[in-house]
């Protein structure tokens, strides 16, 4: 009996081992040809020119990994349309939750697992991957010419475009019109007015802000916008983040740090019960059930709210810019690029990948995107009709009262996560604002060793 078991086990072991070997050798083959990939990437123009010739070749599959996992259905629709137009190309879509995306992508690339097309955020992350040699230069591609030169310039890395701008959207405060009307609250244009409104709502026994801070990113997203906005626009420390990266500036010398911590405390105070126990979905639920009056968020919960409370979605909710300061002239509408698209420089199916990008840059695909994912897109001529609540922001678009606080952040170190964890200590009186500012400076110093 025992012998048989032993034999069985060793066979099982052998099989796994052999299986693992097979997997390895595949990986080695693909990873062992960086020179080929480099040679190929040197002539992207000729490659795309030869694309029509290879039209009748056998079907290829390209992998597409993205961090818009809450928009999986919408993206599936776009991919379906693309596949029906290009029967020779299959797209293997891999949606990943945003919090895990960076790690997964990095691990896949470092281990030689080739993802042909993937989403990236413009800025420091793109630069890291570009410096690692993983990104194909897209500057000369035909489909890039359909985008606004200003947008291309903003998303360029070292003067060249390695990512294709895709979607963008405002990040502002959703509010419940009924609660605001019942309490006679005007849309606040200054920070003090916002907090006064919150106080009024709280006095009525309602929840002013739906927070969802159990997940890391909602707090981080708010923090990484309130802080740079106050740093650059209110305190006029325009080169703070440059200096921070070089180790020349300190949070202690930036009054905006204290302002942001004070704002965070206000948010926490006027937030829902169990601020750090409820996650993003819980917060959206709370807003959709009309239990909370306001929610600081991008446009992505809109499909969810439409499903949960169509009436609220259609007429009951509005959207106003988050007033980070007490100067109404400064409180413009935060408008950020979201996902941009990159092609892997080691991809074996670049032509197919370029076709996919060209399709994403076309108006029909952009319209499907707008309709289903409910974010705006950079594609010219695409619809802007994402939700009734957004039309309220039209004056801001028309008057160009937009700004992007993310261009202020030039650091590659991830101080946001650290800041959001430290600030939670202040919520529970585990540390004072001074303590955590010192901790932050120590942490930054440690990261420059």
């Amino acid at each position, binding site marked *: 009996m025992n012998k048989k078991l032993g034999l069985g086990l060793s066979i099982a072991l052998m099989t796994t081992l052999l299986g693992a070997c097979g997997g390895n050798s595949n990986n080695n083959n693909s990873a062992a040809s960086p020179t080929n990939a480099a040679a190929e990437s040197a002539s992207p123009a000729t490659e795309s020119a030869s694309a029509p010739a290879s039209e009748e070749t056998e079907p290829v599959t390209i992998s597409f990994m993205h961090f818009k996992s809450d928009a999986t259905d919408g993206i599936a629709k776009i991919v379906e349309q693309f596949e029906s137009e290009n029967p020779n190309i299959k797209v293997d879509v891999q949606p990943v939750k945003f919090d895990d995306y960076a790690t997964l992508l990095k691990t896949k690339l470092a281990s030689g697992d080739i993802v042909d097309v993937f989403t990236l955020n413009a800025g420091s992350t793109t630069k890291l991957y570009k*410096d690692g040699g993983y990104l194909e230069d897209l500057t000369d591609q035909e489909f890039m010419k359909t985008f606004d030169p200003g947008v291309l310039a903003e998303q360029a890395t070292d003067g060249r475009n390695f990512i294709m701008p895709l979607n963008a959207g405002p990040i502002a405060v959703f509010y419940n019109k009924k609660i605001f009307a019942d309490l006679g609250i005007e849309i606040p244009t200054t920070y003090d007015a916002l907090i006064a409104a919150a106080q009024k709502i709280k006095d009525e026994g309602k929840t002013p802000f739906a927070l969802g801070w159990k997940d890391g990113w909602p707090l981080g997203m708010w923090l990484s916008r309130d802080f740079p906005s106050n740093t650059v626009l209110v305190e006029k420390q325009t080169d703070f983040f440059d200096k921070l990266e070089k180790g020349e500036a300190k949070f202690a010398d930036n009054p905006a740090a204290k302002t942001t911590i004070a704002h965070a405390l206000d948010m926490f105070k006027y937030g829902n019960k169990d601020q750090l126990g409820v996650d993003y979905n819980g917060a959206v639920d709370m807003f959709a059930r009309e239990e909370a009056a306001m929610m600081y968020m991008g446009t992505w919960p809109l499909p969810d709210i439409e499903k949960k409370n169509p009436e609220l979605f259609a007429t009951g909710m509005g959207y106003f810019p988050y007033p980070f300061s007490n100067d109404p002239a400064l409180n413009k509408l935060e408008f950020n690029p979201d996902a941009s698209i990159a092609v892997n420089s080691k991809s074996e199916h670049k032509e197919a990948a370029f076709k996919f990008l060209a399709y994403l840059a076309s108006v029909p695909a952009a319209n499907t995107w707008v309709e289903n994912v409910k974010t705006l897109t950079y594609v010219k001529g695409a619809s802007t009709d994402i939700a009734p609540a957004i039309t309220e922001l039209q004056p801001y678009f028309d008057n160009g009262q937009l700004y992007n606080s993310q261009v202020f952040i030039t650091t590659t170190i991830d101080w946001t996560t650290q800041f959001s*964890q430290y600030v939670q200590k202040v919520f529970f009186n585990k540390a004072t604002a001074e303590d955590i500012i010192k901790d932050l400076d120590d942490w930054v110093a440690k990261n420059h060793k």
Partner: protein
Amino acid sequence: MESLKKTIRREMWYILFLVPGVLLFTFAVILPFVSGIRYSFTSWDGISRKLTYIGWDNYVNALQDADLWTVLGNTFKYAIILTLLVNFVALLFALLLDSYLPLRNLFRTIFFLPSVISVILAGFIWSYNYSQGFPRLLANFGVDLTSPLGNPDRALYGLIIIAVWQGIGAPMIIYIAGLQGIPAELSESARIDGAGPLRVFRNVTLPLLAPSVTINTLLVLTGSLKVFDLVLVTTNGGPGFATEVIATFIYKNAFSSFKAGYGMALSMIFFVILVIVTIVQVTIFRKREVEM
């Protein structure tokens, strides 16, 4: 000499069967470990293809890193409380389920069930329970409860509750097996000599159960020192670093902060700590065991 050769020839067969296991261990454990040691002496960011060797800098920085000590404190607090609780509860259940209880097989299955689901799932179920389920249920009785995971003072205990709920299954089975291995005549003769149930447990059952206690504390302690998945899905180290443990700390350094080299150095330090803890624990417990 002749016989030695014969023995070698006879034993060769066994070595052949060892080869797959040894190969697997070499490629899956030893090689990554060795390359990890190499990376720990570099300032690698996890992406770039260049390696810059910086000597012992990572280790020096790590030992001066105040966060490392806080994180180690959290880890040991979690591990020690969990080890004591899991073993106590598992032993209690084992004693109960080893006695002549009606439906004891059903109860054994029920208490073992949480161990079958994955930690990730348990984490999600419990964060939902904590933030939605329990507060709504208890609201009916007028109790106002917030999720322990959202409060730095209680988050670690919130995690321990989940881990106990999930972790008692395997130790319980080991204890039941241990209890069944104890000859009935020993406790019977103790009873005839006039020992009460507590005395029997303390002087007969527990000493004979010592091997099970050793293996269970060892498994639970080393397992809980390495806890990662549960923390990542429930609190991700928050709020305010209250539940940051060494494994998530290493992960965040290596991946989120783009300091793979530093993360490797931290891993090596953690490895040394784990080895020391295990050796100390085994020597202490081995001394107390009773051979039959």
